[in-house]
């Protein structure tokens, strides 16, 4: 067993060593806290981003699923000052529908009669209906195909004879 000699200078050296260790330990703690906080922040940001992206993805899909529209009736104005058609669209889903576009095709001739963007989109509350008026010149006896498109990408197609 080695005995450390008792010397006054040794005592001073021991005190200096203790201060360095405390400082070192504090630095270590600071470094650890900094690193782990950074890691926590990065991980939270990453996880949050994942959650947000997934939420948006799923949310959009959910809304698109919940938004269901159906065309109940189409009436034609073949004469008079308001030529065109009135399309009665109902939202049978649970999410408000926004009708953004209507495409009218002359089925008999195989031509696009009119493409119609609604600005602002026509809002339909769940369970309610709205009349979408499309201006074009319908020919009596001609079959027209109406494609109603929502902002979420849902569409419904209906054929009617003028």
């Amino acid at each position, binding site marked *: 067993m080695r005995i450390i000699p008792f010397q006054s200078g040794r005592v001073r050296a021991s005190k200096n060593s203790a201060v360095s260790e405390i400082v070192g*330990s504090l630095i270590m703690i600071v470094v650890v806290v900094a690193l782990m906080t950074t890691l926590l922040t990065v991980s939270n940001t990453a996880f949050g981003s994942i959650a947000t992206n997934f939420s948006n993805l799923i949310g959009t899909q959910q809304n698109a699923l919940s938004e269901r529209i159906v065309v109940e009736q189409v009436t034609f104005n073949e004469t008079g000052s308001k030529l065109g058609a009135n399309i009665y669209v109902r939202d049978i889903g649970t999410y408000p529908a926004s009708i953004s576009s209507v495409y009218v095709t002359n089925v008999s001739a195989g031509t696009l009669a009119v493409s119609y963007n609604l600005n602002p989109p026509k809002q339909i509350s769940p*369970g309610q209906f709205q009349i979408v008026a499309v201006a074009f010149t319908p020919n009596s006896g001609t079959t027209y195909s109406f494609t109603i498109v929502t902002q979420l990408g849902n569409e419904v197609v209906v054929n009617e004879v003028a």
Partner: protein
Amino acid sequence: MKSHEELPSSRKATVIPSLQRGGRRRKFPKKSRSSVSTVIATILFIAIILSAFSVMWLVFGYYNNYNMQLIQYDEQTMQQKETSFSISGLSFKTPSSYSAPSTVGTSTSQLATSYSHQGKVFYAQGLWWVFYSDGSNIVYRTSSNGQTWSAAKMVTNSPGSAYGYAFSAYQLGNTIYYVLGSPDSAKQFHWGYGTFSSSGVISWIPEITVGTSYFVNYYDSITVDSSGNVWTALDEIQGSNHYIQILECPYGTCGTNWIKVNLFNVGSDSDLVLLATTSGILLVYGQTSSSTQQVCITTPTGANCPVSPPSYYYFLYSSAISNGSTIYFAGLASSSTGQTTGAVKFWSYTYGAGSTSSEKTVDPNTATWVVSISQVSNSFVVFYGSGANLYYVYSTDSGLLWTQRATISTSETAISGVTALNSEGGVAWVSGSGSPYNVRFASASVSWQLSLAIQNSSPFAVHLVSLYLYDTNTDALAHFDVNPQGPGVVGQFELWVPAGEAINSTIPIVWIHSQNYLITIATDEGVLFSNNYVSPP
């Protein structure tokens, strides 16, 4: 050299344990500092793990919701495929008979309910409400069946109450507004409003008196626009000059705060009616000499008589109502001025147009017809009477085609003051050749019907929310919906049909003979049933 045992106890701490235990460590202070870092790191690590778990939990929740949505979508799609219903029976019904006229009360004035367009008959809270002058007061009576009537209740006895034509009323939901002119007595008018109750009582605000530019002569009209502003128009006189004044009472600050919108000179006393359209207020007026004159249409701030129909009309025996941005007029018409008899004609005018529609002859027979137009569901009804006879006709296509006239009564005396404004098929008039005159009433609501039997072949109940009746000849559409406030909806339609059962439903609608009708019924799941039917000749 002293052995360790020989050293003072205070010095034993300087012994290095690692050396004593063959290389194993450690001194206490180092161990303590190391644990702090470890604890902090561990806590933060656990926080990261918890954060990850919470995100996973959220993601799982989103996915679970999405999955539920998918299941619901599949169920709805499956239910749509299994839904099967049809119209198993349909019949077009005509009115078997008009309700026999009843006597509402008596009056010492033959003009108790005059004039045709001023609003004396209303339907609210399940009751008919008929307003008239008893010769001294403006009163009203109510009836739930159009046959038996309550005691008279007074509206006002202010100056002018002896004249039925000095009183005009307008209904907005369960609120009624009235204006009362004081013929030649003062430069003022009276007005007020109240609320219909199911007990047959109207709770009125205290009547308000408002000053005018000139003496109010005879005629007035009141209406409310879509913003809740109250409008009135008055026939006024100053010396030998005649004027029409239009005033507006702003919503929210209305009382005596009437703004004078317009005051313009007209040739003679002019009867008038203010009509609220979805595009704005329109004024229809005509001079009131005892012969037919030109009828004018203008806006509250517009020029004097910018638009007139082709024929001349006796405006006191004519009336107009509004629907959407269009007004509809029916009256006693003649091709020249100065006539006291004529045919019954109809026309319409859309706000902003440069001219009226072409005229349609409702009844070509010539007489001194007193004419009033009303709206029942999606149809227009014109009531007109002369002498002992009172008739009515219907149109379901905005006045293009009219039914043959039907008789309400042939046993009246000197019919006057036929009024049916916005009255859901109820009509009031005065009968009699001397005082006391009888105030009479008849109602025709839900007389024309479409009777449906709807068969549900589905293994579950179906909820029907929409019915369309489309006249393929005229492109006229009548839409009945679960939401009666929807755009263009003329009536409410909602029906639950139990699984495997049939249910009868009656649609109050005036149909046209020998027309092709496409009937479409929709469920709340978007399943449709359509079929074509031809109405009987």
